Every structure is written in C-alpha cells, then in structure tokens.
C-alpha cells in the first residue's frame, strides 16, 4: 500500500478527534478524543518511519504513547477529584478553575 493512504487515514482520524473535542461536553469523552488525535499522530509518525526506512519515528511514537498515558492519568485524577467534590462532570458548567 502507498504511504499516502496511511496518511489519509491518519488525517481523517485526527479530524474526527478534533471535531469530538469541540462537540462533546463530558470531560471523559474529551479525553478519549484527545487519545484519538494522539493516535492519529502516531500513525502518521510510523508511516513516515516506514517511508524513510528508519526506525527513529517508531521511538517517537513510543514516547508519544508515554506522554498520552501521563495525560490520561492526570486527566482521570482531575475527574475523580471533581466527582469527589460533587462538581458537575460537564465542561460547560466548569468555567472556573479556582477552588
């Protein structure tokens, strides 16, 4: 398969993730959409790595996975803390970050 096909799939997945971040209101789903965007970037990185026959892009993808795992951990921790404080799990009603 041409590398261009993989890049097109990656662009489509990234677009779907970005539209989801804009549309959905639950922070849990917004985190899932961020995962989609990071995975689309991973697919593009690995496609370029295959294109050049150089494994450096795969290392880059692994580092992106590590960063995604950290982001998920912190984001879910914030959601659990919000739930403990009986705050609404809705980004429209969470306009203030204080307290």
């Amino acid at each position, binding site marked *: 398969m041409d590398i261009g096909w993989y890049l097109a799939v990656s662009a489509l997945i990234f677009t779907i993730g970005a539209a989801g971040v804009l549309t959905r*209101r639950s922070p849990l789903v917004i985190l899932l959409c961020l995962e989609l965007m990071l995975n689309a970037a991973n697919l593009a990185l690995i496609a370029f790595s295959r294109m050049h026959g150089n494994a450096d892009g795969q*290392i880059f993808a692994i580092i992106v996975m590590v960063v995604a795992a950290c982001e998920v951990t912190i984001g879910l921790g914030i959601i659990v803390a919000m739930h403990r404080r009986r705050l609404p799990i809705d980004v429209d009603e969470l306009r203030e970050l204080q307290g």
Partner: protein
Amino acid sequence: MVEVLFFVAGIGAIAGAIGVIAVRNPFFSVLALVSHLLCLAALFLLLHAEFVAAAQVVVYAGAVMVLYVFVVAYVGGQDEPLGPGAGSGLRPVSMVFGALLFIELCAATLGSGLKLVDTNGAHIDPGFGSAAQIGQLLLTRFLLPFEAASFLLLIAAVGAVVLARRRGGLTAAEDQARYTAMDLLRPAYTGTMAEGVGGTRRLPPVSERAAATAPAEAPAVPVQDD
C-alpha cells in the same frame, strides 16, 4: 492481501473513531476506542512496526483502557444528551472546522512533494521495527528521551495520587465503616482517654443508632480532619 488487510483495518479504525464521538454513553465510547486501538495496531503491523503494535495492544488497549473503564464506572457514566442543548450552536461550526482541518492535513501531507509518499516506502532490513532494534535504539541513541519519559511517568503517577486522594473529613455514610470492634463492644460514654481529648469517633448509643437510619444525619461527634 495487504490491500484487503489495510482497508479492513482502516475502515475499522475510522468506524471506531466515529463511534467514540457519536455514542451517547461514555462506557460505549471507551469500548469503541478499544476497537479503534486494535484496528490501529493492525495498521502498525502492516507498516512493519511490530514492537509498537504489541505495545499498543498491551499498554493502550489493555492497561489505559481498563483505567478508563474503572473511572467511568466510578463517576457513573450518565448519558449525555446529544441533541440540542447548551452550546449546540457549536456543532455546525465543529463540522466545518473538521472538514477544513481534513483538507488542510491532506494538503500538507499528500501534497508535500515528498517523493516516497506514493511508493511502498524505502527498502528496509529484515529486522526493521523488531523489539531488538527498538531496544538497541532506546538504550544507545535515545537514552536521554527514554530516561526523561520514565521520569515523566513517575511524576504523573505521584500527581494522580495527589489529585485523587481523600481531602478533609469523611461523610457520615463513609464514616460508619471506620468504627472498630471496640466501639461496638464498649458501653456508651465510659470515658476512654481518646474520648477525653475529643479526638475519637464515638458510636451513638444503641437507641439513637437504631433511630438514625438516614445516612445524611451528622455523626454524634464532629468528624475531625485527618
């Protein structure tokens, strides 16, 4: 064969991605993301990235998604209304934004003039993308990013514990579970040393305990922060 696998996995990945943003229940969004990640791992395998595909399945679709499922179950995945509601005017805006972003990304990647985009890729060695090659790269050329990533994971773990820890006192319902056997066996108000300094949680007498069935009722002694 490769073409068939690519289209099956690619369509599965895109369908999973659409499912993540289109399904109303967050629990099903997580399940859609799991299927999306599995299809993406198949695409990685087609690109000869064996180690990354295995890590994707084990770490992402396994560990991270289990974390998601636990948090969705804990928070209680209430259905989010997908219809018109607050901020629904953003939906057409996001559609237009998504279409523009897709066109721009395709123009940036496919129209970049890279010679190899329309080929199968450069010639690769047989061991390309194997665990041996990735491990060798991580421990020689990319040692510093590797160590920085491990520090980042450590910081994230500590930060998650700090964020999600219990702050302040307990609610009355949770407090019920903290009584020891001594609180039940000892006669009420016998005046232990802990009661003298006012720092203990005392059970109310049996008569009051039978009356106080509502969990929202305050405990007999104000709960101290711990």
